[in-house]
């Protein structure tokens, strides 16, 4: 099922386009894009069920990812990666400093919550705007160079932002301790808090932490307001990214990646296009930053460290750069590993391999242990290297290949029409 959709997502625009010409459109999307969009909507809305497939108390329950905190991360980092993909996937410019925009967005959001209101709308809007302006400045300077120089310039800007946030800008950023809304903050739009109440992020009164649990037999499903707010924002962001991919602007960005020389000899300077892509992708990062503080009202400078920038690169490549759904899958996979794989310890391993004879059990535990728990980064690094070496198109390409193998059995021509993007 999923393989099928990945294929729709990535089949190159021409293949999709000839189909769209003759058929009607829904929401401005061609049939294949609409199917993909529809599927993503269903998956995100049903996530609390889908991510909790194992009953409580069972040995597999630790693989359940259906708790609010993690689900929020899935969609928020999905947004971050979708935005990064608009820059890297379409134009080929590899930014190593995108976490700076996420961080700036978070700081802007928290200040709105301190000064204006705990309603998340102003916080998110201002996050996007501030990150956009910051991206405009950084992009304007960095895009005067390309290739590795561009990567290093963005890295330099991000590290500078991180260092400044950590030291000099402490009055604005809270330095090492970071920022969070305090009871004493002005919040000019909100009424006074009740005595003893702490400020909580809300959407016109609906608290982000609010939700209810639903027990079905041994299964426990959690529905969280914050997750659904973030998920709706992610769906909008995803929809916009599809539109950008299919637009003349997106085509120009792919042209930038393909051949800048021809583009400028066609009377178009690549610069405004790359700058626009950079700003848009910075705004996506700012949106993710704003949502992060809306869900968990605190921010620290480490959010801007270059490893955070590296993480979004990993997500996008792992899922499939230049594909629509890839970055979301990559973000999901990495966040899942970070939160689930990292919690498995030796005791749990011993439980798993309990059925083996003692010697084998210990051997298996010793063999597997380095790759899980605190060693999950090792697994990530290895998977990432394998993907870069063998599957430059990421998981999506892998999915396509598998789908191709099944299809070939059915009809021989099918694979011809699915060029990798």
């Amino acid at each position, binding site marked *: 099922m999923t393989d099928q959709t990945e294929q729709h997502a990535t089949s190159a625009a021409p293949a999709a386009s000839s189909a769209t010409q003759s058929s009607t459109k829904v929401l401005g999307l061609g049939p294949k894009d609409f199917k993909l969009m529809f599927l993503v909507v269903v998956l995100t809305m049903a996530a609390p069920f889908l991510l909790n497939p194992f009953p409580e108390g069972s040995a597999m329950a630790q693989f359940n990812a259906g708790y609010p905190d993690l689900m929020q991360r899935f969609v928020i980092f999905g947004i971050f990666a979708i935005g990064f993909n608009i820059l890297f996937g379409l134009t080929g410019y590899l930014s190593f400093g995108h976490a700076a925009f996420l961080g700036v967005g978070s700081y802007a959001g928290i200040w709105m919550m301190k000064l204006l209101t705990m309603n998340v709308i102003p916080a998110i809007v201002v996050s996007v705007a501030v990150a956009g302006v910051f991206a405009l400045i950084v992009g304007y300077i960095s895009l005067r160079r390309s290739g590795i120089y561009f990567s290093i310039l963005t890295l330099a800007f991000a590290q500078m932002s991180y260092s400044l946030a950590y030291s000099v800008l402490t009055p604005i950023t809270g330095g090492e301790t970071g920022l969070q809304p305090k009871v004493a903050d002005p919040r000019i739009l909100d009424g006074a808090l009740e005595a003893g109440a702490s400020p909580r992020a809300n959407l016109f009164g609906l608290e982000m932490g609010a939700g209810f649990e639903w027990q079905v037999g041994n299964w426990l499903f959690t529905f969280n307001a914050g997750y659904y707010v973030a998920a709706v924002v992610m769906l909008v962001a995803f929809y916009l990214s599809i539109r950008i991919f299919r637009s003349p602007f997106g085509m120009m960005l792919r042209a930038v990646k393909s051949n800048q020389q021809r583009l400028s000899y066609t009377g*178009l300077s690549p610069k405004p296009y790359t700058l626009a892509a950079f700003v848009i992708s910075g705004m996506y990062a700012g949106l993710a930053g704003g949502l992060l503080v809306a869900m968990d009202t605190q921010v620290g400078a480490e959010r801007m460290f270059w490893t955070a920038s590296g993480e979004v690169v990993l997500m996008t490549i792992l899922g499939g750069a230049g594909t629509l759904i890839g970055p979301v899958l990559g973000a999901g996979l990495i966040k899942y590993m970070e939160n689930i794989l990292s919690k498995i310890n030796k005791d749990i391993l011993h439980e798993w391999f309990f059925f083996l004879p003692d010697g084998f059990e210990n051997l298996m535990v010793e063999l597997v242990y380095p790759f899980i728990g605190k060693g999950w980064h090792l697994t990530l690094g290895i998977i990432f290297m394998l993907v870069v070496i063998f599957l430059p198109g990421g998981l999506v390409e892998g999915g396509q290949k598998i789908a191709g193998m099944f299809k070939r059995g059915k009809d021989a021509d099918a694979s011809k029409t699915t*060029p990798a993007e």
Partner: protein
Amino acid sequence: MGILEVKGVNKRFGGLQALGDVNLSIADNVCHAIIGPNGAGKSTLLNCLVGKLIPDTGSVSFKGNSVLGRSPHEINQMGISRVFQTPEIFGDLSVLENMMIPCFAKRDGYFKLNAISDVMAQRDMVEKAEHMLEEMNMANKKDMMASSMSRGDKRRLEIGMCLAQEPSLLLLDEPTAGMARADTNNTIDLLKQIKDERDITIAIIEHDMHVVFSLADRITVLAQGTPLVEDTPENIKGHPKVREAYLGENSGH
């Protein structure tokens, strides 16, 4: 007064005088070939015309406006299109998309943030591109990835992309270099057709005398960075100076 006027252009690379006092006038609506042995400065001259290189001295004007100091995309917008020695196309895009880009460039100008509308929903642009592909005899290849085509087809596409911008001047840099004989002849036919059917000036730099004499109305012979003679093809063929410059080189005729 020609459409393109080159006056007193000099260009040095370190100790090498690549162009020495080049004067050249290309008249409107002709096919003007620039020929010369290897190292004569043909490519340097071309690069000076399109803004890739800036001459040390001299002036280059197109329709009375100076092109010096302008970037390639600005010069292109003035109405000069260029075909490269190795075809420069958007290899990762489909043939149709390749053709649509100059159509959009023509319509939208320098930059337009057209980020929400669907490319394929812009019927007029699609039709224009498809029409252009038909003219290039490539309509059946429109969904192919451009990089997967033969060199001859890539060249055809590149020329088509240039024409889609409706330029006044088309510059061709050795358009048949490295091509098989059949592809070369196809390209010659295509260029002849363009010359006859369109209101366009063509400047062609070429090595292959067969191509030059099939197309050119006027020929300038460049040697060691300086124009040697300029004349009609008939006169050039028997010119002693030209034979001298090409001594040892088989002209093919």
